[in-house]
């Protein structure tokens, strides 16, 4: 990982409270984030604006 990329990733991590990650942890975060981005690319972009999520709260069920 380039120093510039590491510094940028550390900044992003720090902003969300991940202040104690070592450089080795940040390298893991970088790899894991790349994997998540790749997975996002595998999902079809065919969702209609009215498509609902899988889990919807139902008042009668939750009461």
């Amino acid at each position, binding site marked *: 990982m380039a120093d510039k990329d590491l510094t940028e990733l550390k900044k992003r991590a720090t902003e969300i*409270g991940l*202040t104690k990650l070592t450089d080795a942890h940040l390298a893991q975060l970088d790899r*894991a984030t790349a994997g998540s981005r790749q997975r*996002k690319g595998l*999902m079809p972009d*065919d*969702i209609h604006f009215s*498509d609902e*999520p*899988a889990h919807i709260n139902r008042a009668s069920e939750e009461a």
Partner: protein
Amino acid sequence: MTDFAYLTLAEAAALLRDKKISPVEYTEALLARIDRLNGKLDAFLRLTPDIAMADARRAEKEIQAGDWRGPMHGVPYGLKDIIDYEGLPTTGHSKILQDNIAKADAPVTEKLKAVGGVLMGKMSTHEFAVGGPSFDLPWPPARNPWNPDYHPGGSSSGSGSALAAGLLPAALGTDTGGSVRNPASMCGIVGMKATYGRVSRRGVLPLSFSLDHIGPMTRTVTDNAMLLNVLAGHDPKDPASARAAVPDFTAGIDKGVKGMTIGVIRHFYEKDDTCTPEMAKSIEDAVAVLKDLGAEIREIQVDPLQVYAACNRTILVSEAYAIHEKWLQERPEDYGDRGRERILAGTFIRAADYVNATRQRRKLTERFNATIADLDAVVTVSSMEPACRIDDEAEVDRTYSRQARAPFNLTGSPALAVPTGFSSDGLPLAMQIVGKPFDEATVYRVARAHEAATGWTDKHPPLGD
């Protein structure tokens, strides 16, 4: 003399009920076997011999008094160490929770206590049911009894290992992306992920709320149905628990598959991904057996495996990160490398991407259920290959996602892993049998027909005893 190691749950239950064996001698025999073999397998993270003997003595007294409470009465079992048992640590196999004492029983534990089960111990797992196999945790990873140099699958590793090694006839695992069915597949045993909501998840360390399932693990199909009979049922305090009626899952289990229509999803392992030739042949052999037994076989097409996998993982790591964020902020060094990296995958997933994955999940589920509407069950691969060496880091990582179990965590369908033979290296091969929501009974019926015709679940690993 009774060979206690490989008594099935059904056999043990009958012998205990008829007072032909005692819970105390059964428990003592398995504790002695665990003492001999656990050092080689590390299936147990924590043994509980005092609890086991107290449970066994109580069961013995009750059975002698004519108060037999059913098939688990006096039968040893193990709990994956993410499931609460009051007064014992629930560690998640992690330094983070090594001193976490459970304040109450999980409902599944309560149920096993109520029917007189004998707790032998807490079973090894991947860290928090996601990070493993790992050698940088407070306890070693479990190993595969078929070859202890090999991974037993995970994350319910200890449960799978102990069952295959004859250390227990029954154990619980959990399954968020395949973690009951993977060790079942790698260890040559039977593992069920029942319908989402069928078994309470309360009192179990969560990994991903909308994908987590608790599941029975056993050596035979009938045993598995017997254990699900104990575990299933509505829990009003688990928001995902279903109010569905609970049948006797063993009823009709031996009725065979004649007249059934069974789908086969080949594209998961022939096109979307590629399994080993031995694995493919074992599944084709299983399909041929079902056909010979009178089932109509129909090849079906569902969405590509990669889409299910991406959707499952996006949801899983998003929810897991939300659960673990505070610990990752405060003590990231206390995770093992593998667990930390897998959970960090959720750090920067955008809210919109998570929501869209849940929307995609709904579409995938609707399409899957529509495709199987006129089928009785579906057969497909579980893992693309048998177990790999546990110390081969690269191979562990390469094979981690090469599986077809995650689709059924998304759809919530009941899915059972059962043995289909052995590789040329002597490692177990397996398939999945998948059913319609809340139709575990048909899944068991198909599995039992295959088991009775092939005898794969009668095979046990060579442990030098």
